[in-house]
Structures are given as structure tokens and as C-alpha cells.
């Protein structure tokens, strides 16, 4: 057993039991971050803040929400929106944050791709990040069911139906997921459980893993520079703050993080108060009606690109393409055969690949929302094929990349 002495202060008392000074060093003041990074490196903190907003607003909403098919819609639109003080504010924050969190996730993801931050020991960061993306997607989808409006109901119907399509024909699986032949009480109850308990637990666990995965390989930097963190941190601690290539996580990097969080929150709250319909779809303000299919059924904007990969093909091929799109990002660290961990701007063909992928995904996103008619379905088909071709081409493009 460790030796405990009479504490000289509260800090000393805690130190003997929890090693708080050591923890503070490991987590903050001697967690070294390279200096040559730009504001895109603050997206992690922006995501953490957005997740906190989701969690807090979700807790308030949970106090009034009723997971029952006859009560859910009114508990949201009457109780929370009209009766509860600031219930509308919590709902708008929750709805807008759920949408914006994906925008930031995509920025974060494409930053990682651009700067090669999934390579050379950073594979686990990428994989845990992709697992977070998948879990956030499930969290968003399950949450979308809860207001039990028209879009909740029909999105639930269409998405769970995917498993019964084509030669997959997993009707039993669809019934098992729904707990019924159609989305009804069993479906709502279990998606409620997933949304407020199981998936948030998984997300919190994965966030821990994502942070842990960052410790050993350290944060990447914008110049693809190999930094000797040991030597540079010694330089910093010796007093040469300006000469060192690294800085403390707190307060050095944190102060910049918070500045960017401040700017982000201006944008975020503008959306919450003045431009929220993109996140709170008007169609979902009609109560669920199993006898009335909405004219246009579309997922939330962040699922549109993968939805559009499913849509333009015949059923079986569409399912294969859809499955391909779901897993392919995870394999990125192995599909990229290049030895270089540098920004895409210095990687020749890969740079073209990067911008093509980004534009292709935006095109897919737009076509996923538009009705699949005429020119839109042609553009959608081309973009979906392009997506597949780009990923198949990636190993060949990167294989012959010269070492820089």
C-alpha cells in the first residue's frame, strides 16, 4: 500500500490519492501539440462542444418526451414547444446541433484525408473516428424517429425496408428490427432506448478511444513535418517557447480552440434562432400517418450521398454499391499505398483524387435529395459510378507516388 502522510493542503490531499498534478500534466499542460496547424485542427474541440450541447439539450428534452405512438408527437410539439419554459430552445438546439455536428464531422474527416492523418501509426485514430461516424449516424437516425412525425415514420419505414430489398429478401430481419410488420409502438420504444441509452454510451466510449488513439502518434501538422516531440517539448520547458515547434494543449492550443469555438457558436446560434428549417424538416411537423405517404421521402442531408449511391442502380447492384459506400472509408489507411504523410497539395494525382471525391460527394448529396427524374437521375448515376471508380483507383494512384 502506498504511503499516505498528513495532507498539507486540499491539493496535496487529492494529489496523494488521485495524482491530480500528474493527470493535469498528461491531459493538458504537457500534452504536446505541434504549432504548425491551422483552424481545421480545432474541429475536434468544436465537435466536443457540439456533443455537449446535444447531451445537455437532450437531457432536458428527455424530461418531457413520451415514447408512445399516441403521445410522442404532442409531447414534442405541444408540451415541449408550447408548455415547457424554453422547451422550444432545447429542441431547436438539439435539432440544429444534430445536423451541424455532421457538417463538422465531414470537415474533420476531409481534413484528415487532405493531410494524410490516417497514416503511419495514426490508423487507429481514423478507425475510431469512422466508428464514431457510424454510431453518430445511428444516433441521428434513431433520434429522428422520436417526434413520430411523417418523416420519422416514413424514413423508418424506408430505411428498415432496405434489408428486404432485392435478393437480400431478409424480411425476417426487418420484422425483427421493427418488432412488428410496420413501424409501431415496439419500433418507437426500442429506437428511444437506442437513442437515449445504448448509442450515447457507445459514443462516449468511442470518444475516449478516439482521444486515446491520438496520444502515441500525436496530432498531425499541416506541413507533413516529422516532429521530435521529446526534444521540442524539452526546449519549450527550458523556456524557449518561441523556438520550440510544439506547444501545450492547455492553455496554448486551448486558447485558439476556444477562439474558434466562439466563432463557431455565433454561426450555430444564428441557425438555432433564425434558420432552423433545414434541420427541423417541415414535413415532420405533420403527425405520422401510415395511410398517407409523403410526396417526397428523403433522409436528412448528411445521409443523402450514400442514399444516392443506392438509388440509381437496379435493386441488387444498388445494395452492393450501398454496402461498398458504407465500409470503404474505413479501409482508407490501406487503400492509400503512398509512403507520404504530407498534405494532398504535394501529392500529385492524390490531390486531384481528393477534390474529385469531395465534389462527387456534394453532387451525390444534391441528387440524393432531388426527385430521381430526368437529368437528375443521370447525374446521380454518373456520380455514383464515379464514387466507386475513385475508390477502386485509389491504390493504383497512390502506389506509384514518389517519396517527397
Amino acid at each position, binding site marked *: 500500500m502506498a504511503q499516505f502522510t498528513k495532507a498539507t493542503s486540499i491539493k496535496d490531499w487529492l494529489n496523494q490519492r488521485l495524482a491530480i498534478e500528474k493527470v493535469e500534466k498528461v491531459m493538458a499542460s504537457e500534452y504536446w501539440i505541434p*504549432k*504548425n496547424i*491551422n*483552424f*481545421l485542427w480545432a474541429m475536434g474541440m468544436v465537435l466536443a462542444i457540439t456533443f455537449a450541447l446535444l447531451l445537455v439539450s437532450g437531457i432536458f428534452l428527455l424530461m418531457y418526451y413520451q415514447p408512445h405512438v399516441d403521445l410522442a408527437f*404532442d409531447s414534442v*410539439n*405541444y408540451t415541449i*414547444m*408550447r408548455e415547457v419554459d*424554453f422547451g*422550444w*430552445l432545447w429542441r*431547436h438546439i438539439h435539432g440544429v446541433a444534430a445536423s451541424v455536428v455532421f*457538417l463538422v464531422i465531414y*470537415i474533420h474527416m476531409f481534413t484528415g484525408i487532405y493531410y494524410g492523418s490516417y497514416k503511419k501509426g495514426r490508423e487507429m485514430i481514423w478507425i475510431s473516428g469512422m466508428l464514431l461516424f457510424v454510431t453518430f449516424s445511428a444516433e441521428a437516425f434513431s433520434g429522428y424517429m422520436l417526434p413520430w412525425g411523417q418523416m420519422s415514420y416514413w424514413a423508418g419505414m424506408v430505411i428498415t425496408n432496405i434489408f428486404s430489398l432485392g435478393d437480400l429478401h431478409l424480411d425476417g430481419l426487418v420484422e425483427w428490427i421493427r418488432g412488428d410488420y410496420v413501424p409501431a409502438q415496439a419500433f418507437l420504444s426500442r429506437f428511444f432506448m437506442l437513442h437515449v441509452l445504448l448509442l450515447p454510451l457507445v459514443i462516449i466510449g468511442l470518444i475516449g478511444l478516439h482521444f486515446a488513439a491520438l496520444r502515441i502518434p500525436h496530432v498531425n501538422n*499541416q506541413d507533413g513535418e516529422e516532429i521530435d516531440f521529446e526534444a521540442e517539448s524539452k526546449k519549450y520547458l527550458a523556456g524557449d*517557447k*518561441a523556438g520550440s515547434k510544439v*506547444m501545450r494543449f492547455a*492553455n*496554448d492550443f486551448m*486558447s*485558439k480552440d*476556444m*477562439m474558434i*469555438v*466562439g*466563432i463557431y*457558436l*455565433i454561426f450555430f*446560434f*444564428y441557425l*438555432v*434562432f*433564425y434558420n432552423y428549417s*433545414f434541420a*427541423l424538416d*417541415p*414535413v*415532420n*411537423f*405533420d*403527425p405520422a400517418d401510415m395511410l398517407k405517404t409523403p*410526396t*417526397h421521402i428523403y433522409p436528412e*442531408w448528411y445521409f*443523402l450521398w450514400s442514399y444516392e449511391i443506392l438509388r440509381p442502380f437496379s435493386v441488387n447492384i444498388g445494395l452492393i454499391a450501398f454496402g461498398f459506400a458504407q465500409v470503404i472509408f474505413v479501409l482508407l489507411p490501406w487503400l492509400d499505398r503512398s509512403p507520404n504523410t504530407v498534405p494532398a497539395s504535394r501529392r500529385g494525382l492524390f490531390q486531384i483524387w481528393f477534390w474529385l471525391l*469531395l465534389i462527387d460527394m*456534394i453532387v451525390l*448529396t*444534391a441528387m440524393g*435529395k*432531388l*426527385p430521381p427524374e430526368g437529368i*437528375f437521375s443521370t447525374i446521380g448515376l454518373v456520380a455514383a459510378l464515379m464514387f466507386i471508380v475513385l475508390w477502386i483507383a485509389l491504390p493504383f494512384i497512390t502506389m506509384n507516388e514518389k517519396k517527397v
Partner: protein
Amino acid sequence: MKNKEPLILVVVVAFSLLTYWLVEPFAHSVMHKHVESQNFAYADLPAITKTGNVANGKELTMGAGGCTGCHSITKEGIPANMDAVTAAGVYGVNPPDLSDAGAVYDAKFLADLIKNPAHALKVEHKFDAAKGQMHPMVAFYGAGGDIDQEVADMVAYMQSIAVSKDELTPRMAYENACGRCHEMRYENWTQLGTKPSFKFEKDALAYDIEVLEYQEALTAYMGKLPPDLSAYIRSRSEHFLSTFIEDPQAHLAGTAMPRVGVTADAAQKIIEHMADAGDTKRHERASVGANVMWYILIFAIFAYLWKRSVWKELH
């Protein structure tokens, strides 16, 4: 080293805005039919050429016009001939009380309605006299004189007893023009009127049964129970609501919903009432929004100053 951050910011913002524009304004403009507002001019209806005589109009309304056979005018002490549920059983929907009709409905519309209900209401696809499909409201064929003069007299009479434009509240406009078909549960409104509070559950249930009976008749008449409008202010845009009220057929050809012929003022008040039901916190949202924006702006300024002071030593 050159600072690339402004360029990166421009790229990030440009791609985000492009995506937003594509999936929101652009996609919705493709998905939804655009209907221009006609400013409630009802240009398809003939203008009233005669100057109405109120006293004559009153006589016609109470007598030869036959209005009070079906319509109550509570303001003038004329009660309904039957209760709402029975009336719905007979006509499909409870005929409206005419006390404030002159303030809610457009004069041209009223004149055309009296002479040719299915035409004014734009439900001729449902009520084709040639096929024997008679509209439950019987047309006025004249009381022996100049029919246009007689109609103008009746319209003038209805306008004379109605509340003034300023006295017409959003709730009154809704209850008159929409409330006999559309429930509004969030405002405690049923097709029979505001639901009273009952001391005993059996009385409340008895009331609910009456509402159900009314709705049954209404469903048979309309083909489908008209929707509850509690959250319509959030599920439809204001432009949609306004143009839909003005002419339902322009949005949804063949719909059983009649053109209700409200004035521009009444239409605006109906929409305001919908906002009072489905977006009650809109004023609070505006004021809290402004405060939060100021707070976050100040936070961002302090965060920037903190960053500057910390980073001074790092360069």
C-alpha cells in the same frame, strides 16, 4: 511562412454554402410547385356593379333569399335550425353563422357564392349540376327583381352587421373560415367549437362522441377528414398557406377543399392564428435570439483576446 487560414476558411465556407444551397433552396424549388399569390383579387369572379341597399338586403336575407333556412345569424337573434351534428348529417358540414361573414369573406366571392356556390367555391369537379350532383347550398335564383341588385343588397347587409376589419381577430377569422372542418387541438378547438371543460368524465366523453359523429359526417362529405391545423405553421411555409387558402386547386387540383374566399386581411389573420397555435414562442425566440447572439459575440471577442495573449509568447 504564409498564413493559409483565410484561404482554407473561404474553401470550407464555399463548399458548405454550395451544399446547403443545393439541398435546401434549390432542391425545394424543384420539389414543390410554385404558386404565385394573386393578392386575393379573385379576378375570375365578376365585379359587383350595383350599390347594395342594406334594408332591402336584410329583408331578402331573412325572407325571399332563404338564407336563414339553413344559416344562423346570432347577432340578429336568429338561431340555427338544428344543432351542428344534425346539420352535418344533413349537409355534410355545418352551415356557417352569417354574423361576421361580411368581414371575413370577399364581397365578390359572397355575391358569386349566393348565385352559384359550386363556382365560387371552385368545387364544380365535385358538384356538377348536369350530373345531378347538387351542392348542399342552394343557389339563389332571384326574388323577382334584378338579381344582381338583390345579391348586392344581401352582401351589403352582411357587411353592415359584421364586425369592422379592426375588430376581426385572428381567432374569429379562423373559426369562421376554417373551424367547421379543421380541428385545432392545440387551441382546444373542435369542429363543434371550443371544447368546454367538464367536471365529469362522462360529460367529456359525451362531447367527444358528438365530435366524432360530426367528423364522421364531414369525412363522408369531404372524402377524408380535413387535417388538424395545430402545427401547420411549421409544416407548411407561410407562402404555401396563403396561396393555398386563396385557391386550393392551384396547389392540389381536384382537392375537395373549397376555395373559402376570404379577404387578404382575413387570410393573414388566419395564418396568424395558426402561428398562435403552432409557433407560440416566436416572439420569445426573436428576443432570446438577439440576446444570445450578443452574448456569444462578446464571448468570441474575449476568446480572441485570450488567444492573442497566450500566443504572444509562442511566436
